[in-house]
């Protein structure tokens, strides 16, 4: 009994349970997938595959490059690189920047007014979202600036007593 599974494992690369479960899920995916692809087959297939790759091949390189550019631009507190161990200013820009862009990614059709029928359909004003997003972004960066100020003052106070002792 035990020989069969181990031989199977060597050839397949995992346990028989793995194969059975995966096949079960594929059968379900096929059952639903046939129905999903009915109609605009190519369109749906493209959307599905694009959805699988959009973060890994588009968003991730974009935010990685943006972050690296930020690190180049922002000096660290000690005047060195912003990416020096222990931080620097970078996170005071990263965090509000991340939240702001996240809001944009989630609500971009409304913020960027990509929905022509919005007012006709809902009876609601379509022009408010961009303003709201900009104000929220301003508040996020203001909050971050406040945090930075507090932390800078605190760091300065901690340094002073030490200086006096010397």
């Amino acid at each position, binding site marked *: 009994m035990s020989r069969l599974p181990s031989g199977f494992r060597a050839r397949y690369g995992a346990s028989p349970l793995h194969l059975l479960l995966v096949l079960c899920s594929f059968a379900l995916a096929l059952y639903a997938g046939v129905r999903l692809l009915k*109609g605009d087959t190519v369109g749906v297939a493209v959307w599905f595959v694009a959805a699988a790759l959009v973060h890994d091949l588009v968003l991730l390189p974009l*935010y990685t490059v943006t972050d690296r550019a930020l690190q180049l631009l922002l000096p660290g507190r000690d005047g060195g690189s912003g990416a020096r161990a222990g*931080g620097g200013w970078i*996170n005071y820009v990263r*965090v509000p*920047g991340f939240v702001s862009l996240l809001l944009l990614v989630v*609500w971009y059709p409304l913020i960027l007014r990509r929905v022509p029928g919005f007012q006709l359909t809902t009876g609601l004003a379509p022009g408010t979202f961009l303003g709201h997003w900009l104000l929220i972004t301003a508040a996020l960066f203001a909050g971050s600036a406040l945090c930075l100020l507090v932390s800078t003052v605190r760091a300065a106070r901690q340094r002073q007593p030490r200086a006096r002792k010397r």
Partner: protein
Amino acid sequence: MDAEESRPDAPPPVPDGSTREVNAAAEPGSGPADPRGEVHGSTPTRQGEKAEESKVGRLKAVLAGGPPPGPTRPGFWRSPIRGPWLTSVFGLVLLIGIPVMFVTGLLSYAAYNPDLAAVNDQTPDKGWLGFYLFSWPTDPSWLYRLTQGVHVTLGVVLVPVLLAKLWSVIPRLFSWPPVRSVAHAVERLSLLLLVGGALFEFVTGLLNVQLHYIFPGSFYTLHFYGAWVFIGAFVVHITFRVPVMVRALRSRRLRTELRTDTAATVPEPPDATGLVSPRPAPATISRRGALGTVGLGSLVLFAVTAGQSIGGSLRRTALLAPHGQEPGSGPNGFQINKTAASVGIRATDIGPQWRLVVRGPGHESILTREQVLALPQHEAALPIACVEGWSTADQHWSGVRLRDLAAMAGFPGQAPEVFVESVERGGSFGSTVLRANQVQDPRSLLALRVNGADLSPDHGYPARIIVPANPGVHNTKWVTRLTFGAAS
């Protein structure tokens, strides 16, 4: 795999000018917002090329079984906080959140009573996927508000967690060799369904609630079948990954992590998951910082979204959600799904010529609005709740009980189902069938008035359906015909 770094064709960073420059710039921090210097990893590539590595040499390296330069090399990914523990924290949140979304999504489908009549079913090919369907109850009246509000709001709130999870496992996308065994191949195919399915569901859902119908087909078809494609892969994934997740979560104490600042942040010990960088850059953010940033993202999304599902004075807090403002003031100043103008209602459709036809087997009454108003009027305080996640607090409706109209149509005892038709032209929801339990409920009305005033045209004047816990689109507006005892 780490040995890869010492291969001659891919020397580790050596003290040459360009390398130093890149190193200084690239210390990856982490946190979803910050893409810790992955690009940086391309350094060895450039150097390799500088070292006059020919195409033949590269091909040799590939044939020898080593990863080609670039993201397939473990050393390319340099975030010091990427590792199984961090991935597992995001995974745990999704492990709880995604089943809630799946179940509330299935409930929403059931709420349409698709098994009752063809007009109720947006996905008539569902086959066995509707195996679980049941009679949607009318109690509590806020049931659909709750389930659909949770479904949409949770979906919005989980976006940063999903993105962070994908960021945290990016080295696995490029694992080398791309296929190690048959098992590995089917697992990767399963991951395509998992990741593709997850993002497909999130994207179609987010676009639909913003009325941005750019997806290739009916939202109901795409979102429903997409969910079923996804969930199989999800079950496979958790079956094989939960043990790994539990082990990883036990490897570090959350409390300790939450006390560790950036300066004290060191990589997790290397393990079989291949997530820990063999060449980590200095930390620019702690794990605490990364978790906090993602959590803040979720919190802010919640804050600017949830108000549209809570209503009242909190609606105004939904600064970016589609239904974060009131369309007007006064008795009819509450949320509208589709205005009269948007579905082509003409003044003549709902003017003095409007009639209500009430039909039953061998019976038909044709009533003017005055005659309907002369029937016994009842009141009910009920919300409007939309599949898009927004809802209103209870509105005070008054009108004729559906079961009284059923009695008029020849069903004096137990009311049967009713086929409701609107004067709407075209559109998916111009007609609907309500189940017997919905007709029978004493709060189910053919409403003529709301909050003490006549219905406005946008809220369905001269008469509309209002049924407790019913999805908004099944509370048909501009009703002109009710046929009792005959599913469409």
